[in-house]
Each structure stands twice: as structure tokens, then as C-alpha cells.
């Protein structure tokens, strides 16, 4: 899930708000020019913005390995994947812009820390197996959340998700393919694969956000259908899907309490360390400082480029008018 702890605004009891809720209940899509409650608009901007920021910051942990990819094919696949992610960021920013905020405004809020991105991207990628684990676990967790979002109530968001989901499932498959190679490779490769799972398992579970019992924002967002499932439902589904995949790889999920529960038809598993999660959100994850510094540097160093391009576009416009 690339949007975590998105604070939901409350709605009101006006006739418009009641009619709006009726449209959502009837499964209609809300489009940019339709009336919508201010709270719905604000919550969506937060959620789509956070989702877009996650795609953008998410380029960094994978970009970290592009220059070290072990084969030309792996390098090409990883480049294509990171390019897709930048593309997802672009659709999502465009989607958010239909709600009356600009991409530059959202970017500024990311850079000065007013807006967040997914906690997962504050963890380091230390070996090539992490490229496999990120695709397998992180994209796998993201898909859990994004597939239902194809049915979200806001039209532009739902349509962006349709395209994004197609690409994400390719990303997950390529991640699992890397893991297969590593898990069936030399002892050193297998060790890398296990080490990646050990480090990324709990951070992946954190991606869904804290338990619903402690999540204060879920209820209204679910009513508005901008959140389709509870955090716990999605986390359970993710664990149930992922544990057999780990077994197939011959890897051990780093959770001694993990056990199939016949009664509920799913695994019992340990909660991640939520104190660590909240520290990461506060900026104390292993890579928060580097990630934000890298984005700020890219933005600051790029100012002369953006200014130059704008100035040139302006000159061309003037020349065109003069020529007419």
C-alpha cells in the first residue's frame, strides 16, 4: 500500500452531501467537474499525492542497483521497471491535478516534509536479492491494495489504477523471477535471498498501515470508497498469498509464530514492530534522510533546467506571435 495513515476529513449533512453519498453507494464514478464534499476532495488529494510521491521516491532504492545489475537483461528489466514507476507517479500527479492542486505544489509538500510517502522506501537495498524481494514483496503488497482501487469512486484515480495494476503485476513477476534464480543459485546467492526476506518481511507488512482497531481514518474513507478494504484484511491476504511462495523458494519467513489456522482459513502471524513504523513515519527510518535529501537535491539542481526550458518556451511564443 503506497498510501498509509491518510487522514480522512469528515463529511457534512447537507442535501448535496447526502446526494453525493447516494451516488457512491449506487456505484457511480465521481468525475472532476462533479460536486464533491470538500473533505472528499482533501482526503483524495492527500491519498493520491502520497501514492504519487511513493512512486517517485520508490525510484531511489531500485535505482541504487541499476548500475550494478548483473546482466544486460536484468539491467534492461530494472530500467523498464523504474521507468514505469516514474510513469505511475506522472499519472497519479495528473489525477491529483484534476482535484485542483498542481504537481509543483504537491512536490513542494513532499520536499519540505508536509506530505509523506510509503514507509517501505526508507529501508535500504543492500544486495541484488533486494531487487527480487522489492518486486516480490513490496510490489506484491502494493498490488493487494491497488487491485481493489480500480473500483474506487473517483474516476481518474480508478482509471489510473487500471493501467498501473497491469504494470505492477509484471513488476511482481520479475521480482519473483529474480528470487527464484537466487534461491536456486549458489550458496552465496541463496544467503542473499534469505537475508533480503529477513530484512524486508516486516517492513512489507507495515505497508498496509496499523491495525484497523487503531486506524482512525478508515471509516469515512471506506464510506466514500476511496479505501476499499481494511488494513488487516489486506495484510492477511498478503501473508496468505506470500507464505506458500516463500516455501516454494525454500526460504524461511522470519516469523517463528507463523502458523496455518484452519479455523480462519489463513495464517496466524506476528505483528510488525509498530513503534519502528511510527519512528519511520517521523523521519527516523534507516534511509529517510538520504531519500529526502536526494529528492531535494534533484529538485534544487534542476531549477536552472526548468527555468531555462520555461524561458525558451516563452521566447518561442513571443516569436510566433511576432511572426503572425
Amino acid at each position, binding site marked *: 500500500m503506497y498510501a498509509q495513515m491518510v487522514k480522512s476529513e469528515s463529511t457534512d449533512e447537507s442535501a448535496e452531501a447526502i446526494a453525493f453519498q447516494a451516488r457512491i453507494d449506487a456505484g457511480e464514478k465521481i468525475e472532476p467537474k462533479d460536486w464533491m464534499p470538500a473533505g472528499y476532495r482533501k482526503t483524495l488529494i492527500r491519498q493520491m499525492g502520497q501514492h504519487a510521491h511513493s512512486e517517485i521516491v520508490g525510484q531511489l532504492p531500485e535505482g541504487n542497483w*541499476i548500475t*550494478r545489475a548483473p546482466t544486460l537483461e536484468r539491467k534492461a528489466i530494472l530500467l523498464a521497471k523504474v521507468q514505469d514507476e516514474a510513469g505511475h507517479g506522472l499519472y497519479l500527479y495528473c489525477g491529483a491535478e484534476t482535484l485542483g492542486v498542481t504537481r509543483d505544489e504537491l512536490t513542494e509538500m513532499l520536499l519540505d516534509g508536509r506530505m509523506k510517502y510509503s514507509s517501505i522506501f526508507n529501508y535500504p537495498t543492500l544486495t541484488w536479492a533486494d531487487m527480487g524481494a522489492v518486486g516480490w514483496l513490496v510490489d506484491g503488497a502494493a498490488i493487494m491494495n491497488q487491485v481493489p482501487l480500480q473500483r474506487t469512486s473517483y474516476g481518474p484515480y480508478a482509471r489510473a489504477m487500471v493501467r498501473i495494476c497491469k504494470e505492477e503485476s509484471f513488476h511482481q513477476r520479475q521480482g519473483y523471477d529474480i528470487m527464484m534464480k537466487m534461491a536456486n543459485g549458489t550458496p552465496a546467492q541463496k544467503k542473499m535471498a534469505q537475508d533480503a526476506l529477513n530484512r524486508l518481511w516486516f517492513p512489507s507488512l507495515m505497508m498496509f498501515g496499523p491495525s484497523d482497531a487503531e486506524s482512525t481514518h478508515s471509516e469515512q474513507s471506506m464510506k466514500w470508497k476511496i479505501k476499499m478494504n481494511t488494513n488487516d484484511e489486506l495484510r492477511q491476504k498478503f501473508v496468505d498469498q506470500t507464505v506458500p511462495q516463500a516455501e516454494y523458494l525454500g526460504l524461511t519467513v522470519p516469523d517463528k509464530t507463523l502458523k496455518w489456522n484452519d479455523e480462519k482459513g489463513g495464517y496466524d502471524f506476528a505483528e510488525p514492530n509498530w513503534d519502528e513504523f511510527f519512528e519511520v513515519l517521523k523521519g527516523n527510518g534507516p534511509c529517510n534522510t538520504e531519500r529526502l535529501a536526494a529528492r531535494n537535491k534533484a529538485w534544487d539542481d534542476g531549477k536552472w*533546467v526548468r527555468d*531555462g526550458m520555461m*524561458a*525558451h518556451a516563452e521566447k518561442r511564443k513571443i516569436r510566433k506571435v511576432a511572426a503572425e
Partner: protein
Amino acid sequence: MTDTTAYFEFLCRMGDNTLVLGHRVSEWCGHAPILEEDIALANTALDMIGQTQMWLGLAGEVEGEGRSADDIAMLRDAWDFRNCLLCEQPNGDFGQTMMRQFLFDAWHLAMLTELQNSSEQRVAEIAAKAIKEVQYHVERSGDTVIALGDGTAQSHERMQKALNLLWPYVGELFTPDAVDTAMAEAGIAPDLTKLRVGFDTHIGQVLSEATLAIPDSNFAHQGGKSGFQHSEHLGHILTQMQWLQRAYPGASW
């Protein structure tokens, strides 16, 4: 020099150019001035890595010693690399990266245009496939050079500095040696000196629109494509690019 040796050298030159420049461009990933540029840079790098697979794959076949494109890319040391010096120059700022790209793209387009008529069918086929990508690369790098050259005073100054810095690396692309001569005589590749006229016209138009002045010097660094003397930069590129293959020999990825 036997025909096969020269042909292998030539294919390594084509493949190492795109490998090394593709590597350099991919260093930008996640750090570009604007999101659209992140996408475009990754896309350009991806195209060049794809072209590398074709050129070095064919090089391995021609050599006939069972080496794959990956073996050639990942297991040679710097002295066996045959890319021109321009491709291994550091990224610098975004303007320097795009100026390097434009100068290379303009040569690459001229080269691939002629290679489509190569006497070797495989070369003609690779050129025909690659040129579609390179036509787009040069359009984009040329447009960016124009926009930044003719943008603000600051962007103009940076682009002129980039052109001055990179200009001495252009000549190597057009200076024939024994390999180039053998290729031209076999009809596999064009006479490099004949490409220069079209190149000069092309870059002359773009740089003039960009309000940039071509340095008044024909000095040209040599030693990249012959492998005699690369810059110090190449070794550092290889320490990253080849690290996994070197650290875990024989592993399959």
C-alpha cells in the same frame, strides 16, 4: 589484421558505445530535474542497453569462442573496451549530460543511416532496428540543447561550457584507423570521414538555433575506440557494472 578480428573490433565499438553511455545515462535514475526527464533518461538508457545486447551478441558470434553479450560486457577489463572517449565522460550537470547525448546521437544517427546498407546483413538489420530509437533520441537531445542554449542567461552559459568541455571528444568519432578502413573496404561500415559533412551540417543547425558557438579548434582526444588509452573514468564505471559478476564468478542471475 584478419577480417574477423577487424569485424569483431568494429562490433565491440558499436556495442561498447551504447553500453558505456547507457550506463552513464542510467546513473540519473531518480535524480533528474523533472519527472518527464526521469522517464526520458531511463527510456534512452534502456534503448541503448537493448542495442548493446544486439551488437555484443553478434560480436560474440563473430568471435566464435562461445562468449555471450554478457560475458563480453561484464568480464573484460578496461583495455579491451572499445567505446569512444565521449561515452565515458562523466554526467556533470543535466546540460552536460544532454550535450554529450546530442553529440553522440548526431554521430550515431549518421552512422546507423549508412549501416543500414552494410554488406553484412546482420549489421544492416541491427542498424535498421536501432535507428528508429536513435531518431527519437537525437530529436529529444537536440530539442533540449536548443531549449537550454536559448533559455536563460544561466542555462546558456552552462550549455556553452558543456559544449566547450566535450568538443575535443567529437573528433575521435570521425578519425578512421586500421579497423575503420578495413570495415569501409569490406563494405561493412561507411568511410567515417564522409559522415563528418552531414554531421557538421546537422549539429551546426541545432547549435546555431541554441545560440551556442562551436569552439574554434579541431583538437581531438584519441584512444577510446582503439582501447589504447581510455580516461580514468572507465575503470570506475566497470567497478560498478561488473562487480557482481566478478565477486560471484559462475553464478547465474
